């Protein structure tokens, strides 16, 4: 089990407010329609506090930090 964390966006909840990309431009940018394109790698340690804020401040709670997924 790894303790590496990834940013995951619930695509159904997300309605493109764009706050996450403002908080964390290092890992999140917006597409032409205002929806986040998230870096698929693990969140580097020094960005974890900002990632945490992106999770907490998303107005529709669409962003989560998840451990690298274990497949069935």
């Amino acid at each position, binding site marked *: 089990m790894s303790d590496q964390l990834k940013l995951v966006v619930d*695509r*159904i909840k997300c*309605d493109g407010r764009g706050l996450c990309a403002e908080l964390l431009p290092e890992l999140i940018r917006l*597409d032409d*329609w*205002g*929806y986040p*394109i998230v870096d698929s790698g693990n969140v580097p340690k020094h960005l974890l506090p900002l990632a945490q804020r992106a999770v907490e401040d998303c107005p529709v709670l669409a962003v989560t930090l998840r451990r690298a997924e274990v497949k*069935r």
Partner: protein
Amino acid sequence: MTRLLDAPERFGPLPQMGGGFIDAIEQSRLVGRGGAGFPVATKWRAVAKRSGGRAVVVVNGAEGEPRSQKDRLVMTWRPHLVLDGAFIAARVLHARRVILYIGERHEKARSAMLRALGERTEPEGALVTVAAAPARYVAGAESAAIHFLNDGVATPTTAPPLPFEQGVDRAPTLVQNVETLAQIGLLARLGQAPATTLVTLAGAVMRTGVLEADRGTTVADAVRGAGGPTESPRAVLVGGYFGSWVEPEVAWQLPLDHETLRRHGLGLGCGVIGLLPARACPVCETAGIMRYLAAESSAQCGPCFFGLRALADACSRISDGSSDGNDLSRLRRWVDEVPGRGACRHPDGAVLFLSSALRVFDREFANHRAHDMRRTA
């Protein structure tokens, strides 16, 4: 060896079987025939492990792919084999419910399935209910089927939970395509699944329709089996609307099996093989399919709803000659950005299809001039 469509319409009572049957499925290396090509044994194990007598089996006969007909054909002509597979799944997975999820427009298939059900005497027959799947492209996606059966809305949902964790009635759920279940039926009956795949031939072939392809059959063999092309094709669509355009000379050699196609970066999908005649316009054809796929987005996820619409609009502008000249570079950027950003694979499939068009019809897209669309079909 018995083939699916040559099998007797009905065998005797179902043989007894337990958890060991999943090993038999594993040895047969059967993969799902609904489009994703996922290994069947893996799916069954995941449900079996969690069932505790609560599992639900969804018999997926939604068949939303416009060009595909093979699922309807199996339900109509071999309904008992589909029920065999469903009952065996119910037995092996200790299911509490079996749901026949059949496309609302597939009347013949539904009545054949119901008639067959009425002839069955196994106790599993009492577990069966029937639901009409909405006639939408995404209605056959696993999570959409489950969403519909739980809440009456046939749109995909966010994973996790996956169906085997929490599906219909929040119970571990197996959603399995009807052709796959018919294969399981034969595997249980004969100890061996037929090494065949059902494909639907569409477009510029002499006889469009369903063909049962033996293992190793190539696209060329299948087209020959359908009476050959009606005229020289410009490209072959392998795998339906979520598949890829392939140059004919490459396509002819391709075998119709999931594993080999995957190694070529292609997919058999739901088994549609479509021939685009040389006199048709590939750009207009692609634009039409993109408009269809954009309209079939369930409009839940921004990148799919807005992205596919933008992709379809750009294709349409190139097709009708109203492009500002930048649409092709927009398309090339967007096909990298859109995939993997929906709750389901709808945007991924649509983009895979479009990427193949941009590759195979590179020249046509770059040099396209508007023409009367009525002459191109």
